[in-house]
């Protein structure tokens, strides 16, 4: 082969690597945001495909529990939004047969489930806590929710808001939690009612619930999701 031809051959081989340059799109400010948004959305889609409704999160023995005083309190705003327990009720709306205000006693009248499960924070730390409450699926049954709806959206006394996909809401370990470590929820842990979702990351476990809506349309998925966190974040 002639020297000139060899140079040409090498150039041709080099050009064949041009597709690698497509990755450069991530460096262009104009495209970066939407590419990352799509990447996160793809991860969320894959996560929802990996989710198995009958697969239980690992549970732990009492000896493995993180002591209650070592269970971090992670409010996004205030540790105590000053909920008046006397007047408190959970306002239910959306695709349900029985909308309205539900008192804590009505939720506590449902079978109580207690579980020692892992709470994993998006930051990377984790603790094993003991949670007690009513199964979310029992409550959805009580309010006559349309379980073919896509989402359950909740709002909180501290203006936090969150959304669960219906499959997760119906998971047997998803609780409307009113107890931690066999004692009534303390204010800083979300009294009188919070979510406990062992199949999801920490910021999904909304505290101080006030409103619940069963719906197909959600305008804003959640406080942290709106800052750029994953919507699904299944563990």
């Amino acid at each position: 082969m002639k020297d000139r031809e060899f140079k040409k051959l090498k150039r041709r081989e080099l050009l064949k690597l041009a597709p690698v340059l497509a990755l450069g799109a991530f460096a262009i400010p104009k495209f970066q945001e939407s590419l990352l948004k799509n990447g996160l959305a793809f991860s969320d889609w894959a996560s929802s495909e990996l989710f198995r409704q009958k697969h239980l999160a690992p549970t732990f023995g009492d000896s493995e529990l993180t002591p209650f005083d070592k269970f971090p309190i992670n409010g996004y705003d205030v540790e105590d939004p000053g909920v008046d327990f006397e007047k408190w009720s959970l306002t239910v709306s959306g695709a349900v047969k029985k909308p309205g205000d539900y008192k804590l006693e009505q939720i506590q009248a449902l079978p109580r489930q207690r579980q020692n499960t892992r709470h994993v924070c998006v930051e990377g730390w984790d603790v094993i806590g003991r949670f007690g409450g009513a199964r979310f699926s029992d409550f959805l049954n009580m309010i006559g929710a349309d379980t073919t709806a896509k989402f359950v959206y909740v709002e909180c006394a501290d203006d936090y808001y969150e959304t669960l996909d219906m499959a997760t809401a119906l998971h047997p370990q998803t609780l409307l939690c009113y107890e931690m470590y066999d004692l009534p929820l303390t204010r800083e842990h979300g009294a009188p009612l919070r979510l406990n979702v062992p199949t999801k990351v920490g910021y999904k476990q909304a505290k101080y619930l006030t409103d619940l809506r069963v719906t197909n349309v959600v305008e804003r998925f959640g406080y942290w999701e709106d800052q750029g966190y994953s919507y699904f974040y299944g563990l």
Partner: protein
Amino acid sequence: MGEEVIEIESAKGGDARRAAREHPWVVRFTHWVNAVSLFVMVGSGLQIFRAFPSFGAKIPQKNLLNWPKAYAIGGWLGGGLQWHLSFLWIYVASGLFYLAYEIFSGNYRQVLFVPSDIKGVWPMTRHYFLFGPKPVATEAYNPLQKMAYTSAIGLGVLSVLTGIAVWKPVQFSWLTWLMGGFHLARLWHFLVMWGILFFLFGHLAMVVLHGWNNFMSMWTGWKQDPDYISR
């Protein structure tokens, strides 16, 4: 290993040179995609690590190291996660593409460290680190290179497995369990990254030492006058 070899006539006359086709397109393509995605995975991974730079309890939290924000990708935890969760798919896809190609084409023989390579390890080590004589090269990669590349590929696989154990400790609870639990899975994921960076350090040092011709072979696939072809 029979790499394709061609002879090149010199334009000005004189001796003919030879060139060997060392790297097929798939290897070169996935090498560079991997280089970019590894850079992003490490940079964004360190951003995620910054949010909880510890492997123990949250209360009390003992920080291991304070990684500077300037050397992390994404700006904040949420940004780091976006990069990490986007590029993991590119990282995994290029890795699978590479592995599938190596296995089905038989090209794995070029890099896979096998028992018959063991006897060549010491002479090569002596040459590299103790100024010993250079062993005769018979193939594209010497035993130490094969050992390094085989380890790097193994670390790549481990980086994904430990990553799954950290990301999906419920759906893949068996994997997390296999790694000794969630805390240890995070630690393995972190250590595997340092293992890869250790390889990368040696890899880049060797690229610098071996010069332009060697470097360009990962772009064009062709290497001129490699030492394992007798003239």
